């Protein structure tokens, strides 16, 4: 813990994430306007005391949309990573614990999944199911569990032969007990690190999807789609690009700093210089 806190970058990351989360949670209390309130007389106004971050192409207050957009962008991260981690833990544990043909099978499935384009899946989903962001999140989750699987498997493979595990086995512990009480808790840190970094990636993926028109749908606001809306006016309505761009930058940075710091602190091999 001390090691963790001694890294100023981790502190910065933590502060950033905490602030963003806080703002996202209290958005309805803090937002000065309804994020969907259109005002055709107030189109593309620059930041002022009335509109802290200006207005967009339909006269909606950008600051309010940014606050609500924080909820969306973060939620995409959490849900997608949640799904990916859940799948990854299950598959990775099975592969790492039982090894043999189960392991080979799972690893080959990982290979296949890595060769299939997520892009298609996303298009198909948007067309077929009700186009809530839930479905995009599910798809991102369903296509990014491979990294966690590999990680968990590697941890299990190495931990499996440690004395405490062998001892427990000798004492007659059942497989499930071994996995959940012994192996998994000790693999927790890399999983957490992976998840935190995954959230950061998911936020970036959402902004990329918005650029292609496949992200969160109108009229809902997300940082990605506010940024995309403003890209044709980047020389003029700079506020439409600057604020969401910075928001994405800072948030992703925060998650990365925290995740990396965690990895540093709990890595038994990197002892003090």
């Amino acid at each position, binding site marked *: 813990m001390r090691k963790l806190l001694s890294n100023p970058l981790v502190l910065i990351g933590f502060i950033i994430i905490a602030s963003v989360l806080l703002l996202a949670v209290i958005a309805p209390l803090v937002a000065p306007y309804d994020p*969907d309130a*259109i005002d*055709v007389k107030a*189109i*593309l106004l620059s930041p002022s005391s009335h509109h802290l971050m200006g207005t967009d*192409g*339909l*006269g909606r207050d950008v600051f309010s949309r940014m606050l609500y957009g924080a909820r969306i962008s973060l939620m995409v991260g959490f849900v997608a990573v949640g799904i990916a981690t859940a799948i990854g833990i299950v598959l990775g544990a099975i592969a790492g614990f039982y090894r043999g043909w189960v392991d080979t099978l799972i690893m080959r499935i990982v290979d296949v999944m890595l060769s299939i384009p997520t892009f298609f899946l996303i*298009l198909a989903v*948007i*067309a*077929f199911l009700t*186009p809530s962001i839930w479905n995009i999140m599910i798809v991102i989750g369903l296509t990014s569990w491979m990294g966690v699987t590999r990680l968990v498997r590697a941890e299990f493979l190495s931990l499996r032969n440690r004395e405490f595990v062998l001892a427990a086995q000798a004492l007659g512990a059942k497989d499930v007990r071994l996995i959940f009480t012994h192996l998994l808790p000790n693999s927790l840190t890399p999983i957490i690190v992976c998840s935190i970094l995954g959230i950061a990636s998911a936020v970036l993926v959402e902004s990329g999807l918005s650029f292609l*028109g*496949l992200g969160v*749908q*109108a*009229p809902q606001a997300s940082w990605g789609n506010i940024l995309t*809306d403003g*890209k*044709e*006016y*980047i*020389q*003029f*309505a700079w506020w439409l690009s600057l604020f969401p761009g910075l928001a994405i930058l800072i948030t992703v940075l925060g998650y990365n700093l925290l995740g990396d710091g965690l990895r540093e602190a709990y890595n038994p091999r990197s002892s003090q210089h």
Partner: protein
Amino acid sequence: MMQIKHNQYQLIKLALSKLVFIALFTPLMITACSDSSSSNQINNKIDYTKSYPPSNGGTLIDAMTGEPSGLIAMIAGESAASAIAGNIFNSLLRYDKNLELTGELVDTWDVSKDQKTITFHLKPNLKWADNQPLTSDDVLFTWQKVTDEKTRTPYGSDFKLVMKAEAPDANTFRVTYAAPYAPALDTWAGLHILPKHLLKDQDINTTAFARNPVGSHYYKLEKWKNGQFLKLTRNENATQGQAKIDNLLSRIIPDKAAQFLELSADNIDSMGLNPIQYARIFPARPDLNKNIALYKELGNSYTYLGFNLKRKPFDDVRVRQAINYAINKQEIIDGVLLGLGEPVASPYKPGTRWSNPELKPYPYDPNKAKALLKAAGYEDHDGDGILDKDGKPFTFEILTNQNKEREMTGVLIQRRLNDIGIKANIRVLEWASFLGRFIKPKEFDVVVLGWSLSLDPDQYSIWHSSQQAPGQFNFISYSNPRVDKLLEAGRLELNPDKRMKIYHEFSKILLEDSPIVFLSAGYGLTAIHKRVRGISNPAPPAGIGHNTYEWYIPSAYARNEMSEH
């Protein structure tokens, strides 16, 4: 210790120096090997207000978001293909600046007494770009190709109505229809005539001619670099005379933001603008206004809200009219188009003879909307703010494709419907999915889409009750026997005045029935660099593009082509 630190500094220096190197190298590369005059700083010194007489020369550079798949328009189909092919090929007829039909390859034409036969008289001594003579044989050949079952063209249906086509002599082409077909002349204004001598032994679907065409219009293809640009250059044998500008260069730039940057840096001469760029950005940027002129013209399409007439409650005309009253169309024009558009009440271009001047769009009247809905059984019985009938709330989905303006229109409509108690949700879909999954199987409630404002008044394929099969254009399933009769009559009537009366009547019924809500017709907004002269301003009914061959670039303003980008 000291040594370690020293080496580290060396490492850092190494890394940073690489970044700095790259940062410096690039301007060095530019200054060393080019005398580029593409920077705004140099540009600002040139005075573009001097007037010059017309002269030949120069290159006009514009940008396209998509790339043509081929230059044989009947096969390629997409707008990028027809735009470029339109500079290479001629049709028999064309529309002049007042949107009247006039001859292009044709001098005059006669319609027979029974109105079933049209005889076209070609101009004499027409040539292809490769110097071969252009005769009625080529026209006949083109007609055979477009009606050939083996040709993969979706545009054959109009031409298949021709029972007999003949080329009695080199300058005469005659077609006979089974019945009088009023839109016929319009179709002949849209068919690019192809050279028989180059295509007769080719499979038109796969021929290399599509990527290396030979035409007869002002320009010929000089170079096509896949994914990058198409360059057209002067055709010395052009049938219509010579254009003033030597070369047309179309750069393929898929992203509109990048296009605008290129326009700002004077790397392209012309670009289509959206309302915000036209009305907000340009006025705020004196540096842009100095060198770039803006043009406005009545656009070629209208946006509408279409109901699925096979779904309740949209089969009830009161509901449709109510929604029509509930939508504030001026607000849409002001909000989405920033005032750069006009309301329409019929599918025709305002100001043309087909547009019925007596018709006015439904005014914004939420009270009347509510009254109509009440008469149809919709009231807020349970006090939740949403209208309901038989216990079911009035809620539906508005579908549209990935088009910013349509999206914004949908949002505004949603809000206005919300005001009177209708809960509408918007769903934006990618085009192919939209058509395949929702339009074709008619799985939709309401759509926001657009149709073009046709030059020929025939609207048969969109409104006739026989055109409702999956994949056909009457996908909203409109069926009105009076309209059917009018549409059929309109196709047979060649007299313009009588025709006009038919379509005025048709528009009137359409407005009363309100199967769609006419929302807006946006203006066409273009930015063209001031170096390009000869543009008609204000634009005539046909738009500023009607006389591109008369545009010219004075040599004082021509770019230095070698180093230009």
